[in-house]
């Protein structure tokens, strides 16, 4: 568990070391300026772009939160989990149940709901998802590597079964609609209050855009700080070698439990955001496919890199939607019902191929690719194209354990 996965360690490490190096380059001023410009652009975007892009943006924000959470678990700590869809479901269902109203609209069965304010639903949803993660962590802590991957697979199927069965809460097979979000009386729906900014009507899509922006940004900053802190370092050591970690005084079981807690809380928030963006929840939205797509996101973005997870999430979430939107323009892709390849399917082919190519050729993912590019730009002498495949030489710190038997996580 050291060769390929050590690449993301390099990615995060260079990320952390960047300020020191940047001090010697013009990037020092450029980088914050660029970030500010990007933020400003994102802030004014609702004034100019269509509703479709804003809705896509909110879906992407939700996926970013989820992907960052999964990346903490899989990329940073090296615990393969296919259960992410389950924790998403816990968040989404809790939110719907707590903030939804009782009564059965459209379905035969009577739905129950607590009717509490949506913010309570969101917070409790996140907490419950975290609790579910914490409950699963004793199992997870006992299992190593691939056993955990398959055991977590079981959780997804059990989750879908519960979603199908527990009709009063989840809406059963047909699912149920999700209450609109509101914050201290300000609704994130289409009206109430009517809102115009510079003559542009701010309806649901615009309002949710800002909500997504704030939540995704918070998730990003939290994860980034976590990785640079002592616990973050502990988690990375855990991935590279459990034995080394415990020798260094890292409580392996406790840290595994905590990372499961944090990761599933991220998933819970992401689930709430997913529910808000779709407007309804159904069992099929939380199946194995979702877990696999999240895995694809973090692999494409770069295991262990927070920015990479965000990039991967944006790519995987937006691609099918964009394909759908431009189905008549793109070659080969078509809208459903016509000949050719449907948008979602075309996107799947791309993800699958991209995952394979990334693992084969660029284990650092998009983040690794960007890092390599940046390094080459800064030090033209060192980063000649012929030297770039051996970029491991640029990372003197993450050497493999010299003594193979000491690799606690190897499966022999």
């Amino acid at each position, binding site marked *: 568990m050291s060769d390929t996965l050590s690449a993301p360690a390099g990615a995060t490490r260079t990320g952390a070391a960047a300020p020191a190096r940047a001090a010697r380059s013009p990037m020092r001023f450029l980088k914050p300026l660029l970030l500010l410009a990007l933020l400003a652009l994102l802030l004014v975007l609702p004034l100019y772009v269509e509703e479709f892009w804003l809705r896509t943006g909110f879906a992407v924000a939700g996926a970013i939160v989820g992907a960052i959470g999964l990346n903490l678990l899989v990329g940073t700590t090296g615990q393969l989990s296919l259960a992410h869809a389950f924790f998403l479901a816990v968040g989404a269902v809790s939110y719907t149940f707590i903030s939804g109203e009782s009564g059965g609209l459209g379905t035969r069965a009577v739905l129950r709901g607590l009717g509490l304010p949506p913010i309570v639903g969101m917070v409790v949803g996140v907490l419950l998802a975290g609790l579910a993660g914490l409950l699963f962590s004793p199992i997870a802590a006992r299992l190593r590597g691939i056993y955990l991957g398959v055991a977590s697979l079981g959780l997804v199927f059990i989750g879908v079964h*519960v979603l199908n069965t527990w009709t009063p809460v989840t809406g059963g097979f047909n699912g149920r609609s999700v209450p609109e979000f509101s914050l201290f009386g300000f609704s994130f729906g289409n009206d109430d209050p009517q809102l115009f900014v510079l003559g542009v009507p701010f309806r649901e899509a615009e309002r949710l855009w800002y909500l997504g922006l704030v939540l995704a940004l918070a998730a990003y900053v939290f994860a980034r700080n976590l990785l640079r802190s002592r616990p973050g370092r502990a988690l990375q050591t855990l991935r590279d070698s459990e*034995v080394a970690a415990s020798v260094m005084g890292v409580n392996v079981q406790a840290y595994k439990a905590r990372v499961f807690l944090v990761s599933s809380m991220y998933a819970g928030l992401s689930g709430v955001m997913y529910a808000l963006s779709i407007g309804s929840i159904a069992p099929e939205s939380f199946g194995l496919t979702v877990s696999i797509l999240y895995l694809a996101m973090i692999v494409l973005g770069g295991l262990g890199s927070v920015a990479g997870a965000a990039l991967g999430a944006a790519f995987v979430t937006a691609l099918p939607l964009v394909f759908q939107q431009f189905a008549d323009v793109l070659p080969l892709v078509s809208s459903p019902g016509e000949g050719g390849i449907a948008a979602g399917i075309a996107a799947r082919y791309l993800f699958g191929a991209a995952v*394979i190519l990334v693992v084969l050729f660029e284990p650092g993912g998009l983040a690794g690719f960007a890092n390599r590019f940046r390094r080459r730009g800064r030090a033209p002498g060192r980063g000649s194209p012929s030297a770039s495949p051996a970029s491991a030489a640029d990372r003197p710190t993450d050497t493999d354990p010299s003594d193979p038997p000491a690799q606690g996580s190897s499966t022999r």
Partner: protein
Amino acid sequence: MTQFLSLLLNGISLGAIYALIALGFVIIFKASEVVSFTHGSLLLLGAYSIARLSEPLGFLPAVLVGVLITAFAAFLVERLIINRLRGAPVISLAIVTIGVDIILLTELIRQIGPDILNVPHPWGGDSVRIGGVGISENRLIAMGVAGILIVAFFVAFKYSSWGVAMRASAEDGEAAALMGIRQGRVSALAWIVAGVLAAVAALFLVGAPTPGVSAAAYTVALRAFPAAILGGLDSTGGALVGGLLIGITEAMAAGYQEQLSFLGRGFGEVAPYVVMIIVLLVRPSGLFGTKELTRV
């Protein structure tokens, strides 16, 4: 009592099919340290090719060609992808097989569409009674074929040079390589054998109690994962026991649905996973898996 026996028999026959899939899973893991998430879609590929080819070719040739196609697909995956990643972390290898799975499964589901393809088994959907216990002929034949294949496999695994080579490289890859065992060839053969086993399992999995080949066959195939994990990922005998255990559990949970109604409809489909998690809680490496030792 009759119901119990009937469920037991059906469970064992289902378990025999699972055991075939799980066995392929385990030998891939032993030979190349890969947990193949591609296995579900390989199985679906087998079922699909048999169903599609049986009209132009006839049943038996279609089965043969279907098995060959599946084995060849497994071989390709090994040669083109897995072989290049020798020595990579287990998680990377698992993820790359997930990538393959996404592509293969998407294509197969697109081809199958919403239809249910019919496989014209010559034995049809009839069932037979053995001492008052009913079982479909398909499942009965499945049990026989699976039994023969499994015995043949174990004999080959024990005595053939391939089996010896594979056990040696599973025991200690480097030492085996130094002894002149070609790891690449061992691994490729393991994938081919797993492909064959998956295709044979597919042939019976889409028979009698199941209506035919549909995308749902993939979900069924996934239940071989708990079977393999339950027995221990690196234990061939464990795959057999795990397969039977999962098959019986599923049949029982489905059969006693009335009594288990508080767990919800369709609990049988989830029961394998529940059993797996419980077993893993007690024995983290499965029933017969090698315990992971950490030497410092």
